[in-house]
């Protein structure tokens, strides 16, 4: 039930992000979610795309340092407190969150969230036990 995220190493130089998105576009790969973690020198671009394996290949061929990372996609009620419930559950079970970002889906009026945690399989289990909706990778890639 894990979603494959593409992570790309980028230096903080203007135009680099545009190059990546252009490259993916030219290869008919659709970006579904995107987040950038920044430092003064470099950034890590994180992408959810419809064809992660092809995207990895294309980026590698073009000389980018990339990796595929397994993350969890969940949907939460789009109302105050919706996300905090999820975080409380993870905190209770001692699962730590490396990073997270939101994700605009087209199908529901729920908020979609990507989570990278230290113990993904366990996290899925406790979230499911607490009736949090885990997104199926297949559904994610076809959004």
């Amino acid at each position: 039930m894990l979603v494959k995220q593409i992570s790309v190493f980028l230096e903080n130089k203007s135009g680099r992000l545009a190059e990546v998105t252009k490259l993916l576009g030219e290869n008919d790969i659709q970006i579904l979610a995107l987040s950038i973690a920044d430092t003064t020198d470099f950034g890590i671009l994180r992408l959810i795309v419809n064809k992660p394996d092809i995207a990895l290949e294309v980026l590698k061929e073009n000389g980018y340092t990339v990796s595929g990372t397994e993350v969890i996609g969940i949907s939460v009620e789009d109302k105050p407190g919706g996300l905090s419930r999820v975080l409380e559950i993870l905190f209770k079970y001692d699962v730590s969150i490396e990073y997270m970002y939101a994700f605009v889906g087209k199908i529901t009026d729920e908020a979609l969230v990507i989570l990278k945690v230290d113990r993904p399989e366990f996290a899925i289990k406790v979230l499911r036990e607490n009736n949090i909706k885990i997104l199926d990778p297949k559904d994610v890639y076809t959004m």
Partner: protein
Amino acid sequence: MKYWNEPVECADRERLNQIKTMRLIDTVKRVYFNVPHYRNKMQDYGLVPEDIKSLDDLKKLPFTTKQDLRDTYPYGLFATPLSEIVRIHASSGTTGKQTVVGYTRNDLTIWSEVMARTLIAAGADKHSFIQVAYGYGLFTGGLGVHYGAERIGASVIPISVGNTKRQVQLMVDFGTTLIACTPSYALYLAETIDELGIDKSELKLKSGVFGAEPWSENMRKEIELKLNLKAHDIYGLSEIIGPGVSFECEYQEGLHINEDHFIPEIINPETGEVLPEGSIGELVFTTVTKEGLPLIRYRTRDITSLNYEKCKCGRTLVRMNKVMGRTDDMIIVRGVNVFPTQIESVLLEIGDTSPHYQLIVDRVNNLDVLEVLVEVSENLFSDEVKKLEDLDRKITKAIEDTLGISVKVRLVEPKTIERSEGKAKRVIDKRKY
């Protein structure tokens, strides 16, 4: 047999210094009276032979460089009549004009002596079968080892370099116990042995003397494993005599310099100043027994340091550390000598693969700043900022611990560092003097 010439190799320092002093005084006189080039240079410095009375006076003398050899080509620095010269060798001359060196009969005896010490220290004796796979000819490697091997009474197999399958076959048939060649050729021999499907138990190899190119400790491990022998580094240069200037004993902790023939110094390559014991700098030699082509304070351009501690093997002959690089590769940052190879070994330890990196030196507010660019390869990359920042800190700390100065590490994308003809430009010096 443990030593070839125990009275010298294990002499106490005072005795060694006496020998060196006597010989130095004698050499300075000989070059002053026999070589116009040296006489003119000494006169320029206001020196007469009588000014050189002790080893400490050595630093008063002018340096000799490869350029001096080129400028006086072919025989301008020879100190004996050409009729006394019995052998001529020439340096490869990969850059610029080639240089010529000449030996009297006595010079060849000295050369055999220092090579005999080298081979004995590598575990050879008269029962050994020594396969000389260095090139014979104008290059000093082949004949240098050959005469040393004959001197100790070993059986010499003078096969020279090349014809690798035959080398391996003879190694098996003749029972070679010591192989002498370049370290890279040693690895090639090992591969060929595997390709030919020869079982290592058919080989009688015990040791090897490998030189004529710089090689790392990792390469030593590889050669020792693949050829099942003990690999000894040897050092030499044709200008000084050829192979046998210095050699490794069984402890492999630096190369003993035959300092009763060749007096070493370590200088700051920028200023020429002699550096205190243990400092890293350029190696300089003065030959004190050679007749044909004595050289005063010859600058080797090789960077190393000297260790005067008595070795576990019992030898007192000073040791030079494995050569770290050439003066051409060195940069001085805030008074500290920095070699790209130092950074490279730090990165190799952290990343486990050959890294692409570049050093950028600049001067900001009158202070040298060293920036190290490291390309983030897949095995270093993480999708978590925290881990990349940890990596950055880890590299920074390891480099600072190695160099003793602060640096700024910048992680960069692959292919950021320009490749020119497959060889990266390691240093960019932006300082304006």
